[in-house]
């Protein structure tokens, strides 16, 4: 399917049917732009390996069938396991503990504020997201505050409708000298076809510190696209850890701008895919000022006929001298039918920079596997141990915490599936 099969007229009618709010101007402008651009196709260089046809099909159906059936919320384990200030998006409808926010945290609804212009509409998925928003949240962490309890962002889909597309937008401003830990969990259950398109905008003021863990473990018939746009100020630091375990099709775009001297970012990711899963991670770091620092390590384990894409780009702009940028992507293929396309990229327009990048694709070490089996571990257990060690390089970058243990348990469950004999 290509973009022309998406019915723009139906889309524009839906946009028009959404009640007016402070978001209206932004929404209509975004809708007009999306009318021009449409969904990206594999003819776009950044989308060469990822065909959004399943997302487009669900979006289309969802626009035609606006009636939603009765909705029931399925239990979501992370709420009980990780103590956090949970902001929930259930099938796109948000709720948060207004009376129980940690001191220093405020949440505004953009539909009734004057801040709608902060909504980013730079690419087509952000445009359709903005066009269909009924509301969006703006979370602010006050200057100088260190938030002890993590902020949780839960995107949970429960839908039994034949097709449902949800677009959610969160803007998080971390003011100067503030520090916060964020866990984003994108989880889904329910029998219906779901397409989730989330956009998160992160603004780190000078000397702010954000530790962001993102888990995507959607049901294996669901489609998700996600875009994170982060702007990092002077001496501010973002650590972003992304875990992609689920979904039929998942595409993540992480865009980080290091706007001032001594801004730094760490991007780590782990993707585990089997069956016919398709997981695509695109990251881009712009070193707009120097010295600034980025380090990136993504690891993937693939089985079945799964396909994964890694594209990590670091751009060192003119004048960003003293920049240090390192990227690496390592992959373990457990099956002959799995495929990974990896491309670390560097663009350098400054002098005096230290940059490195590398990528590897390998198989399970047969000698290691045999060694473990001669000690009495069965093949599945031995494979699990070796793949877990490979994944641990990423999992263990989370500090000991409930978040760490939760992610570990999800990763373990997925590794069990990946190393099971019938694969």
């Amino acid at each position, binding site marked *: 399917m290509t973009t022309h099969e998406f019915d723009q007229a139906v889309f524009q009618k839906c946009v028009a049917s959404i009640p007016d709010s402070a978001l209206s101007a932004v929404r209509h402008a975004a809708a007009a732009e999306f009318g021009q651009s449409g969904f990206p196709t594999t003819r776009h260089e950044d989308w060469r390996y990822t065909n959004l046809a399943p997302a487009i099909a669900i979006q289309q159906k969802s626009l035609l069938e606006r009636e939603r059936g009765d909705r029931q919320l399925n239990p979501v384990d992370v709420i009980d396991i990780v103590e956090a200030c949970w902001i929930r998006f259930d099938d796109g409808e948000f709720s948060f503990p207004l009376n129980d926010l940690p001191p220093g945290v405020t949440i505004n609804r953009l539909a009734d504020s004057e801040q709608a212009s902060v909504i980013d509409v730079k690419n087509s998925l952000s445009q359709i997201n903005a066009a269909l928003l009924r509301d969006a949240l703006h979370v602010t962490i006050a200057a100088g505050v260190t938030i002890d309890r993590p902020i949780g962002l839960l995107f949970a889909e429960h839908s039994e409708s034949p097709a449902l597309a949800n677009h959610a937008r969160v803007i998080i401003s971390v003011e100067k000298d503030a520090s916060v830990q964020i866990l984003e969990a994108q989880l889904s259950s329910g029998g219906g076809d779901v397409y989730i398109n989330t956009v998160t905008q992160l603004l780190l003021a000078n000397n702010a510190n954000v530790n962001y863990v993102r888990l995507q473990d959607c049901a294996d018939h669901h489609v998700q696209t996600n875009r994170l746009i982060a702007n990092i100020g002077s001496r501010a630091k973002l650590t972003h850890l992304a875990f992609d375990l689920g979904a039929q099709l998942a595409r993540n775009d992480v865009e980080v701008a290091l706007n001032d001297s001594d801004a730094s970012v760490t991007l780590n990711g782990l993707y585990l895919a089997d069956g016919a899963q398709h997981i695509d991670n695109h990251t881009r770091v712009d070193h707009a000022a120097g010295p600034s620092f980025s380090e990136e390590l993504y690891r993937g384990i693939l089985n079945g006929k799964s396909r994964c894409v890694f594209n990590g780009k670091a751009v060192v702009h003119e004048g960003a001298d003293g920049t240090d940028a390192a990227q690496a992507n390592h992959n373990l293929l457990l099956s002959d039918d799995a495929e990974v396309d990896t491309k670390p990229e560097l663009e350098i327009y400054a002098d005096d920079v230290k940059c490195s990048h590398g990528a590897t694709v390998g198989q399970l*070490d047969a*000698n*290691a596997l*045999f*060694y*473990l*089996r*001669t*000690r*009495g*571990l*069965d*093949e599945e*257990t*031995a494979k699990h*141990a*070796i793949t*877990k*060690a*490979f994944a*641990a*390089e990423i999992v263990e970058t989370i500090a000991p915490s409930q978040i760490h243990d939760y992610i570990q348990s999800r990763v373990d469950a997925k590794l069990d599936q990946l190393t099971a004999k019938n694969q």
Partner: protein
Amino acid sequence: MPRNHMLEINNLHARIGDATILNGVTLSIGAGEVHAIMGPNGSGKSTLAQVIAGHSDYEVVDGSVSFFGEDMLQLEPEERAQRGFFLGFQYPVEIAGVNNAYLLKAALNAKRSYLGETEVDAFEFLKLAKEKMKLLDMDPSFLNRGVNEGFSGGEKKRNEILQMAVLEPNLAFLDETDSGLDIDALKSVANGVNALRSKERAIVLVTHYQRLLDYIKPDFVHVLSNGKIVRSGDYMLAEELENKGYDWLREVSTG
């Protein structure tokens, strides 16, 4: 009827790719015995150990191996281990990120669970592991390191013997356990092996040199050449080999 042996290797032929390495090995090993299999490089010593452990690169083309009366060649490598077979590797594999303690405990519990025994918990395991490490002059910090990860040659060999000590196998093949060891390491490895000698257990030392046999005295010595056992004897044979080398036996095998 011959006495009931723990391991019976009969006319074993094996190859890797197109190269035939074992040309009819016949060998019986009984409980309580220590055997040494000696021979020049390329004679098939390590292949024999790997075939008995179940390495899938080797294809058995003829012959049989029975372990406590069971057809060993039909078993997966882990099933052989769970039934009490242990291979001490000539080149222990480094497995980054897999914890030594994890492996030891998982290996021990795999065997216990096969035998219908309850699994050991973390506390019991630690007590056992520390006790065995003391025997081998190993620092308990080794438990928290990756399996053989960054270990020196001597540390790897000690680690093999530690695994053997924890698993208490019925039959252990130790492949070139003495290679790359300085004299102190050799002594502590030998102490570890000697501590495991018992009338229920059999140990096979696969070695090129007689040096190890000064510390672990075998009951039987066999010489492997061109994939066949060309001579068997007692400890005196090892001394003879030390003096005369292997050439005089090579003549026998080809002549």
